[in-house]
């Protein structure tokens, strides 16, 4: 059978204050063409000024994934005509990128694998075309926003590995705080190269897929492409080197252009931008500011908080989740309990939103209050789940809700005993069965006491009381 070979080109917008080559604000959204100037709209005579911060961020990423930082690096012009590209060339890097080599470790189904990077370079984003009934409009707000392109070696062999690689890069970008890394807003994008070959034979011809806007799209597009290429090969046809566009609605990809009609970008060093020369001292300074990455944090969670390795890893993959977890722990020191809740209930909630970029929309203080109520058995699991939904996207205080609506569990032993005595008197048969050892009947008594207390009876307490009463 065929072996699948996958390589990724991942683009990530950097969240610098200003654009890569001018002082316009780098903000997502905003009225069209309000964050632009003569430079980023390609007015005659305008010249680029390199944003130091963008260089610093690119080096940060390079250092975080073990790249060699090139002390001498050059911006080049990639020449092609398209309306979203106002100068008709993109300022990018080719021969002398900022970072080379490096790589990241991924884990799929318990198996660890090292994926090598070929390079990371800095470039500018293009504007955005908006197609309307009256014609095509152009918004240059995004034009000139700094991007890093991270190119992998063809080291992946399944869609799961490709997604794990992408998630790993996303995790690092978020940890470094250099990108919002949101797939849906388009500030994290990826092109996928796929080829098939037989064991022991040289690599096959590859196709490149564009327009992959979610982890799901990456998975589906690769699966589709692997099947398509296998069919071609099985039918004795050759794979054509081409660029394909993924249509997520149709679940198919289409050929955009083949190698024959691929563009000649006529790259050459941009004479408007002096080559970047970085000193070791500068690189060292950036290195000293790198935050703790996922692995280091996970290690700490295991050693200092007693979490399992697996849980710690899941919790630290996304910096925002890990930050959130730590904030909650600060006001409620029950790391294991909080961890279980986040990995269970909160993740379930996040997954239900079907958005790769979804975040926890309850402030950590309210979350801590909610968990304190749950942990102290003031509220039961059902109520806790219900409150998670209710608090989501609001600033409501769970303590007040519980008080106002009387959601606290009945923990009053004497009261519950009275209620249960009555239930037992009314259901002698059930009491007999329980006495005979049918533990299933316990559920009956819990259910009945819930009914009698509007669901507020503490089930643990009910259990204890019933056990006590039947022994009498």
């Amino acid at each position, binding site marked *: 059978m065929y072996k699948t070979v996958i390589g990724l080109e991942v683009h990530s917008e950097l969240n610098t204050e200003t654009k890569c080559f001018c002082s316009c604000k780098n903000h997502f959204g905003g009225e069209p063409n309000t964050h632009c100037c*003569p430079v980023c*709209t*390609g*007015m*005659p*005579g*305008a*010249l*680029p*000024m*390199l944003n130091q911060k963008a260089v610093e961020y690119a080096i940060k990423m390079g250092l975080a994934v073990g790249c060699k930082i090139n002390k001498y690096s050059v911006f080049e*012009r990639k*020449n092609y*005509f398209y*309306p979203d590209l*106002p*100068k*008709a*060339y993109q300022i990018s890097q080719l021969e002398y990128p900022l970072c080379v080599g490096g790589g990241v470790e991924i884990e799929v189904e318990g198996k660890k694998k090292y994926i090598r990077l070929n390079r990371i370079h800095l470039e500018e984003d293009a504007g955005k075309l908006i197609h309307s009934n009256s014609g095509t409009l*152009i918004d240059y707000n995004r034009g000139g926003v700094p991007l890093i392109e991270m190119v992998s070696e063809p080291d992946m062999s399944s869609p799961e590995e490709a997604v794990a690689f992408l998630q790993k890069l996303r995790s690092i970008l978020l940890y470094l705080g250099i990108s919002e890394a949101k797939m849906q807003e388009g500030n994290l994008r990826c092109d996928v190269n796929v080829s098939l070959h037989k064991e022991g034979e040289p690599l096959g011809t590859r196709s490149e897929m564009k327009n992959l806007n979610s982890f799901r799209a990456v998975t589906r597009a690769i699966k589709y492409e692997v099947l398509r290429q296998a069919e071609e090969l099985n039918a004795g046809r050759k794979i054509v080197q081409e660029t394909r566009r993924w249509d997520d609605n149709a679940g198919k990809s289409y050929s955009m252009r083949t190698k024959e009609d691929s563009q*000649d970008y*006529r*790259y*050459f060093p941009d*004479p*408007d*931008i*002096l080559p970047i020369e970085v000193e070791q001292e500068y690189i060292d300074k950036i290195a000293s500011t790198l935050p703790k990455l996922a692995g280091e944090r996970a290690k700490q969670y295991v050693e200092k908080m007693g979490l399992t390795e697996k849980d710690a890893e899941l919790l630290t993959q996304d910096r925002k989740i890990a930050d959130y977890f730590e904030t909650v722990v600060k006001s409620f020191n029950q790391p294991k309990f909080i961890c279980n809740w986040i990995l269970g209930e909160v993740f379930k909630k996040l997954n239900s939103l079907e958005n790769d970029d979804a975040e926890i929309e309850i402030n950590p203080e309210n979350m801590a209050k909610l968990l304190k109520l749950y942990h102290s058995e003031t509220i039961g699991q059902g109520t806790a789940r219900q409150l998670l939904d209710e608090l989501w996207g609001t600033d409501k205080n769970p303590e007040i809700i519980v008080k106002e609506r009387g959601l606290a569990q009945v923990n009053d032993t004497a009261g519950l005993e009275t209620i249960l005595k009555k239930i037992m008197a009314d259901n002698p048969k059930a009491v007999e069965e329980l006495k005979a050892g049918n533990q299933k009947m316990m559920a009956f008594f819990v259910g009945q006491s819930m009914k009698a207390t509007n669901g507020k009876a503490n089930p643990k307490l009910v259990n204890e009381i019933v056990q006590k009463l039947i022994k009498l």
Partner: protein
Amino acid sequence: MNYLKMDLWQVREALKTGKITSVELTKLCFKRIKETSNLNTLISTCEEFALASAKAVDEARASGQKLGALAGIPIVIKDNINLTGTKTTCASKFLANFVSPYTATCAQKLVDAGAVIIGKANMDEFAMGSSNENSAFGVVRNPVNTDYVPGGSSGGSASSVASGQCFGALGTDTGGSIREPASFCGIVGLKPTYGRVSRYGVVAFASSLDQVGNLTRSVRDSAIMLGVIAGKDEHDMTSSSNAIPDYEKAITGSVKGLKIGIAKQFFNDKLNSEVRSSLDKAIQTYVDNGATKVEVDLPSLDTALAVYYILSSAEAASNLARFDGVKYGVQSKKFKDLVDLYFKSRTEGFGKEVKRRIMLGNYVLSSGYYDAFYRKAKRVQKVIRQEFEKAFEKCDIIVCPTTANPAFKIGEKSNDHLAMYLTDIFTVPINIAGLPALSMPCGKNSEGLPIGMQLIAPHWKETTLFNAGDFLEKALKEGK
């Protein structure tokens, strides 16, 4: 008193001492522009703006305020320099109606120094040409003899200064575009060191070679103008933060001990004999006044023109790609689809010479040819630079003709592109090496056409050019 024949520094004194006001002077200039409209020097004028600036300077002067170096002096700028609210056409049909949304740094510096900008000068389209015949707004004429070309591409700037329409002009020089027209029109033209003057807001032809400079009637004027426009600009990464000396003070009146480099490559047998004898006389004047002559060698000089046409065309092809019919300028009315829009807009908007360079540029950058042309040209450029550096170990200044021949007749070379390109053979190497050079008149031929001498100095040594230039200028006037 004919103020319009004065040098810039002289009229500066006249203004200072109240002999004339800036408004009066500005009005005289506009009158002169109308009288000499046959020269076709300007693409647009800004009379209202100019008179308002002149009035403001006069009022400031009357109230005793401190004034800038060019306060109240009428100046022309080349039409590839953006000035908010004015048309910046680059003498191209493509930008015939383009109004600048911002101001170039060099133009802003003029305004800040109190200069009165009176108009935008005609030029070869996108600064590509040596005769000012490639303009969508018509040929510019040489005021010395209107049958002749004024040179290019800053032909409008040169003709305007030479005909007394203004006291100085900005031009741009990529391969000789300031020095050649200055030489043809009998005035002074300065191409500063690459990086001395900001290029921000100046429509790019070949970014690594383009440099803004000035055209004036005297060397001292040139020094004054450079002092205003020079300097680091936070909008241009290639501009230099090198200190700006007082250029006017560099003029000492003595050339004692000056080592003048003579390279035989500039004095080959194709050199016009009248040009040669004028140059010989000028050099002898220096020697007679205490300078010494040193022989220097520039063996790769004859490769500079080839290097120039590869590098400048490559950069031009990329720089001019933004003129695509999408955002501004010509947008063809009858396009079928996107590609057709690009083809038709560019076909309609650009002139022949511009198209020729774009095709040449894209050719030398295309895959499979890049190494043979662009990369090789970059390597040869290094060699040429090193040869100049070596030459300057032995001398302070290199003297040579600006062009091998004086101005030619309008139409004479329009169909012989190679002959036209060869006009720049002595000026192009200076841009390739990024050096400063000054062209100044050093005589006339038998038909009365001016002969230009080119002074070349090491990087950042414009001071040497001004001192040596001013010395010869005075010597020629006094008939020394």
